[in-house]
């Protein structure tokens, strides 16, 4: 993919990790396993880890869901980056283009649907769920595709995996 950073470049630049997975539902479990493993390196309790895993899986599901009707072979990119006080997970739809950033409203703009049963049937619970589970959700668009950025705040990182 022209212009797309490789996994090695990403790790060298940010200390993070990037994987490309086929945009197929069967690969979401692999993403969850990776996120769970990486989250355990930080000082996140089990509940926060489970919340993050669910949020990332839902975000990947948005991309996968949009692909089910297009049959696109291009992958979903998942990047994990670390900072001193948090982790950022970026889920990128590599088929979209500049200006196609997914619309992610601010958490205070999202209300729980008045009829959650109907919302569940119509697939409208995913966004409120993600916004409730993590500290920040934003979106962006760039030459590599449109992305959702999920941030969880956590304690200082010394650069070494916790044991």
């Amino acid at each position, binding site marked *: 993919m022209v212009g797309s950073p490789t996994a090695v470049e990403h790790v060298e630049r940010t200390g993070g990790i990037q994987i490309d997975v086929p945009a197929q*539902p*069967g690969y*979401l*479990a692999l993403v*969850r396993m990776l996120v769970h493993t990486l989250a355990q390196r930080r000082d996140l309790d089990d*509940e926060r880890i*489970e*919340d993050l*895993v*669910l949020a990332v*899986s*839902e975000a990947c*599901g948005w991309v*996968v*869901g949009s692909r089910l009707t297009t049959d696109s072979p291009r992958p979903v990119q998942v990047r994990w980056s670390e900072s001193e006080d948090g982790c950022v997970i970026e889920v990128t739809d590599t088929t979209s283009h500049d200006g196609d950033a997914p619309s992610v409203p601010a958490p205070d703009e999202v209300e*729980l*649907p008045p009829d*959650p*049963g109907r*919302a*569940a*049937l*119509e*697939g409208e*619970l*995913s966004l*409120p*769920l993600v916004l*409730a*589970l993590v500290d920040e959700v934003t979106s962006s668009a760039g030459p590599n595709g449109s992305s959702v950025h999920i941030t969880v705040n956590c304690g200082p990182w010394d650069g070494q995996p916790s044991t």
Partner: protein
Amino acid sequence: MDLGLDATERNGFVVLAVRGEVDVYTAPRLRERLVEMVSQGHHQVVVDLEGVDFLDSTGLGVLVGGLKRLRSHEGDLTLVCTQRRILKVFEITGLTKVFQIFEDVDAATVVASSE
């Protein structure tokens, strides 16, 4: 990733024990099983989520769809769940107001049979 679906009968109710991860990949199998139960005339269903490791919004949609389908046949779908991580998903989404959620299968079937 495997999804376990084991159905047993108790007090005239079908208890569907779900094991594994319920997501956009596996949820269709759960949906098919619930539809199959309804078509076989089982209209009182208890879905036991104690063996579920992961449940996403797709799984929630399947459970609500099953509830709706059963109620259209004058039946019901109740849940068994004590896992904090799974209950939290129902709480965040407001679905605790939609489903009856019990601590164990005994409670679910006793209450269900008394209604």
